[in-house]
């Protein structure tokens, strides 16, 4: 059995808008090994959430391959999709809108089991719900509670329990802690890491928060306007951030220490350009402090600059 659980080749997702073609995900190649976590980082408009959804076929890709255990998900028929759904799940960002407000905790968690006819007996499903609640740290007494009775942290635990219900191999975590308080974030992150150790889960962890991603990821991919600009093992990325955008991103994080003050030059200028009908060349060119004429002429590819560390930048061609 290969180490690689899921990988993509030339994955693209474009949306047709009145103003033109929106390049949400553009030629992204990723590879995640079993039991590992790929952190996907970027700011608004980088396409990370779209990427997660395309991997699970919540959105249909425009072009490219998605290989799950070697088989192309894009070509799956209905039966294969059903099996895929049992193996690949998602934890959503907003604990307030990702759970049906009219369903109890128990109903939410058992929904996947009902649709996929696993745990056919009602008693088994019931037992499984309690088991899952215990696994994610939700007290028994909430089994028939409604979401609005619970706070954000507990609601997110419901989402985690739901994602685990079918014993998936792969979970896309779409900013699962962004909407939570700092102390609750820490609890949920610890939970996700414990679950990964226990069950050998593979994660794609999507976030805009670099400090969170370092903690949980083995490898990190940095996205900007739909393209992957840098990819490296977690520690390596923070030790040697190479792409100018990655550097800017790291410098922009306000450090909770009075000995590391942000200076003027740490702050990059300008705003993200539009992903609609993007101009050729590097999409970060407009804001890059090291921009050269070559940057806007040809498409950039990810080049390996050291072991497992890839960058797409004219400075390293």
């Amino acid at each position: 059995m290969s180490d690689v659980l899921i990988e993509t080749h030339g994955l693209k997702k474009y949306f047709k808008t009145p103003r033109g073609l929106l390049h949400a995900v553009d030629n992204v190649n990723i590879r995640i090994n079993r039991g590992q976590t790929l952190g996907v980082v970027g700011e608004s408009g980088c396409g990370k959430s779209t990427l997660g959804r395309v991997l699970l076929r919540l959105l249909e890709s425009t072009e490219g391959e998605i290989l799950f255990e070697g088989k192309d998900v894009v070509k799956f028929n209905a039966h294969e999709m059903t099996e895929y759904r049992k193996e690949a799940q998602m934890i959503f960002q907003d604990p307030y809108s990702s759970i049906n407000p009219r369903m109890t905790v128990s109903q939410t968690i058992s929904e996947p089991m009902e649709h996929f006819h696993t745990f056919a007996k009602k008693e088994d499903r019931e037992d499984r719900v309690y088991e899952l609640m215990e696994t994610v740290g939700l007290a028994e007494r909430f089994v028939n509670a409604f979401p609005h009775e619970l706070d954000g942290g507990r609601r997110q635990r419901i989402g985690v329990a739901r994602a685990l219900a079918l014993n998936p191999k792969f979970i896309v975590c779409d900013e699962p802690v962004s909407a939570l308080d700092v102390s609750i974030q820490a609890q949920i992150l610890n939970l996700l890491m414990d679950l990964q150790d226990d069950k050998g889960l593979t994660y794609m962890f999507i976030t805009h928060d670099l400090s969170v991603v370092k903690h949980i990821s083995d490898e990190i991919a940095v996205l900007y306007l739909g393209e992957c600009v840098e990819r490296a093992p977690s520690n390596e990325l923070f030790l040697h951030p190479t792409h100018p955008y990655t550097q800017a991103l790291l410098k922009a994080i306000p450090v909770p220490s009075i000995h590391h003050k942000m200076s003027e030059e740490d702050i990059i200028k300008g705003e993200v350009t539009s992903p609609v009908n993007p101009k050729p060349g590097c999409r970060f060119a407009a804001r890059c402090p090291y921009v050269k004429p070559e940057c806007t002429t040809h498409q950039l590819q990810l080049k390996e600059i050291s072991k497992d560390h890839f960058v797409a930048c004219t400075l390293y061609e």
Partner: protein
Amino acid sequence: MSETTNKTISDAERAARRAKYKKKSELKIVWRQFKKNKLALFGLILIAIMVVAAFAAPLFIDFETDVIEQHVLDRLQGPSSEHLLGTDAYGRDILSRLLWAARVSMFTGFTVIAIGIVGGMILGATAGYLGGVVDNLIMRFIDIFLAIPFTLMAISIVATLGNSIPNLILALSLALIPKFTRIIRSSVIGLKGQEFIEAAKLCGASGPVIVLKHIIPNALGPIIVEATLAVARTIIDIAGLSFIGLGIQPPNPEWGAMLSEARKYMIQYPYLIMSPGIAIILTAGSLTLIGDGLRDALDPKMRN
């Protein structure tokens, strides 16, 4: 393929667990919330009284003698012990006619609403969820109906198909379905973008299941309110149609028709016009209060 869990737990333990964490009845919660709104409660009691009275009417009112038969000698009498609300221009007991008319109005009203909701849900949910060409087709079709003035449509239907209660129901339903379709469609579109719908897809729910299980229960709020208001409006519409001679045909009593008959005697015998008028106001008013109360009670976020 079924799986079993790792834990083995006895049936007795399971039963004990179920009893311990009983699910709160959704109905009880809604009722408790509804009760807090005193005005809504008042409306409910009022409507309940009217419905019971209308239902029970045949028990103490004889259709032929009290409602239809004319007693010219007794005409236009004020309220008395024998005729609590007086008599009309043909000597008929107003109270009896009022109660009998209530039966027709309410039956017709609720039937129209029921058809309206079902029709509106099917069209609105389909248009909203599927979007694109289907949405366009359905909504343009709806627009045609919305463009026709209600009275005109009612007149056309009645003129071609004849004057009867089923045709009345048809006319009113055709006027109502477009309005409900719009409301439901817009709720559905709003809900479609919520993350829990995506989660449902990942759980294996297909389109129809998502609409039935996830979208419609959450879209209930605006519909319930509209429905109760629509009953009120329908009753007024029926009265309006009868007023111009299109709805319920005499000698069958109907509030609107009674209003029409009372016009001539408005100055000399005001009680003649007051009775059906107040009946309409009370019915429509209490239904509106109930509608408001229900919407608040159904919204899970408004609790606590």
